[in-house]
């Protein structure tokens, strides 16, 4: 048997629905149709009345989820694409994210954002929005990079009493497969050493973990041992695990697929600089997408985002510093 990242997301939702009557799913086309990406395939049939098609109203979708959470439900929201969460942005950062702090009433909602670039998707179907959400207090932001994490972190997201922004990467939907679903998992908030190595640390998350692993593979043939840290959650960030890795390697490159100004890579580098300064043998480095909208054409897209190739060359540069 083999299971994809996308199927893992479906299975996690099936399990959540089966085990907790408070869970329901709400989003555009999630019902009988099973969602634009089929992440809810068959669930409306299996759980009648608990998987609801929503109108094209992201603000109202998130607002209703908050209301349902106040009444004790645990809604899972699917945005059709992360990019379309902007019309619901206000409800997320000002309603959902402030509810507990203002009232002590928890807001256990999970918002699934099909995120990130795939070839030919263009400026409005490719965005990585984790930094926008992570900037605001009151939210947890998950960025699973593996089939196992897609499954277990989504289950954990539903179980957590706070709003969780679940950034699932569209590129991984079909590309990534595992043999089976996990029965145990690391908790949210803990980073994972995706590959150990002693020469240089690459911190990455979501699809970039795989670009980093491919880069590590390539450099291994030249004798360079790259340690890859998979952040798993970007809010909170597991600074301890990052610093421990930097302590081992002395060099670090932080890779993200998002726009360059102020995202995850800035936050991670800032923490390393502040908390792990003395451990560094060279300046910490970053690799992000370029500071333009995400291009449609595959040629441009491939050059816009970091890839194994650009990571390899960034690591080579870093080792020379």
């Amino acid at each position: 048997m083999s299971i994809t990242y996308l199927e893992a997301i479906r299975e996690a939702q099936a399990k959540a629905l089966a085990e907790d009557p408070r869970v329901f799913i709400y989003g555009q086309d999630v019902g009988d149709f099973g969602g634009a990406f089929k992440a809810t395939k068959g669930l409306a049939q299996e759980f009648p009345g608990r998987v609801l098609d929503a109108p094209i109203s992201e603000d109202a979708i998130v607002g209703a989820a908050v209301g349902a959470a106040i009444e004790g439900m645990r809604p899972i929201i699917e945005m059709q694409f992360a990019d379309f969460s902007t019309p619901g942005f206000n409800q997320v950062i000002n309603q959902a994210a402030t509810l507990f702090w203002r009232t002590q009433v928890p807001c256990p909602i999970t918002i699934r954002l099909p995120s990130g670039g795939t070839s030919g998707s263009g400026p409005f179907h490719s965005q990585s929005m984790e930094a926008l959400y992570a900037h605001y207090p009151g939210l947890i932001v998950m960025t699973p990079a593996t089939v196992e994490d897609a499954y277990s972190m989504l289950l954990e997201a539903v179980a957590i009493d706070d709003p969780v922004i679940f950034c699932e990467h569209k590129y991984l939907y079909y590309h990534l497969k595992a043999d089976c679903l996990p029965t145990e998992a690391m908790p949210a908030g803990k980073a994972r050493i995706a590959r150990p190595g002693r020469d240089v640390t690459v911190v990455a998350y979501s699809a970039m973990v795989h670009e980093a692993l491919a880069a590590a593979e390539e450099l291994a043939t030249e004798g360079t041992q790259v340690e890859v840290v998979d952040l798993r959650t970007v809010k909170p960030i597991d600074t301890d695990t990052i610093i421990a890795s930097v302590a081992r390697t002395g060099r670090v490159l932080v890779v993200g697929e998002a726009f360059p100004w102020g995202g995850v890579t800035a936050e991670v580098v800032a923490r390393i600089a502040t908390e792990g300064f003395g451990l560094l043998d060279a300046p910490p480095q970053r690799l992000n997408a370029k500071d333009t909208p995400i291009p449609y054409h595959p040629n441009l897209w491939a050059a816009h985002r970091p890839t194994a190739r650009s990571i390899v060359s960034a690591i080579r540069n870093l080792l020379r510093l």
Partner: protein
Amino acid sequence: MNSVVPAPLLAGGEFLRAFRWLVQARVLDEKLAALYRAGKIPGGGVYLGKGQEALSVSVGVSLRQGDVYAPLIRDGAGRLAFGETVVDALRNCLGSQLGPMRGRDGNVHRGRPRDGYLPMISHLGAMIPVVNGMLMAKRFKGQSGMVGATCLGDGGTSTGAFHEGMNQAGVERLPLVMVVADNQYAYSTPTSRQFACRSLVDRAVGYGFTGHVVDGTRLEDCLGVLGEAVGLARAGKGPQLVVASFLRLCGHGEHDDASYIDPSLKQSALGRDCLELAQAHILEKGWASSQELVEWRSEAVMTVEEAVALVQKEPGPDPYAEQWCALQTTRLSEGGAS
């Protein structure tokens, strides 16, 4: 708010009960204005309901336990009628640690979600889908007979949030009562710059709502129409839109002298004070004497003065005791980090 005993259910009992909340709300507002002028409001904003009380209180008295209520800026009267205490209201305005928001949020931003009483966020229109979600959840849980009510100004109807929330309630056929307080202005902006329909009730049909209009200056009308709308929603007749017309009889906030208000509107029927009209109505009907009206006002003043005396002694929040954590799941918080 047990200190004002509801009037016994005599002829006009419902009216009198509502009237006394109306008086209580007006008196509380007057006190808040005085505290504001005296510089006693931490940070400074005070937003009053003057002119809107008849409408607002009619919403509050039409609801009951188990219902959901998301009042807005000028709903002091509805809040009291729905069960908020004068003490709670004052605590929130004076920043008491013991208030419902514990000093974290202030003035009109208060509520107790567990009691079905939602604390507004400032973004206009944003509470509508939250009420919808609570009603959807009650339906999931198999509860019925509940109603959700929320309020918005003429200006607030221009938000995308209003539209999405209305449409959602229509599609889900929720027992939502959407109350639009058309008080002729959104801050300084007249309705001519806000919408282009004759009346905002013209929007009801587009959302599959039943529409109602009411003269917001007349308590008897407001009680009747709100009673009907809430009753229809409760009876499963789908979502209801109530559009009330009247004039805001105060500034946008107490910092605002509202000099932009068209004098002819003040002279018009829209500009009448609902409190005065209600008093005249009571006297006309013989439901109470002038003497009783004076006494009721005194009781309301006493209630407020006692509450102020109490709340002013209460401590503000202590920043050193503050946890600086926005998450229930404290282990995942980066709260104190800087």
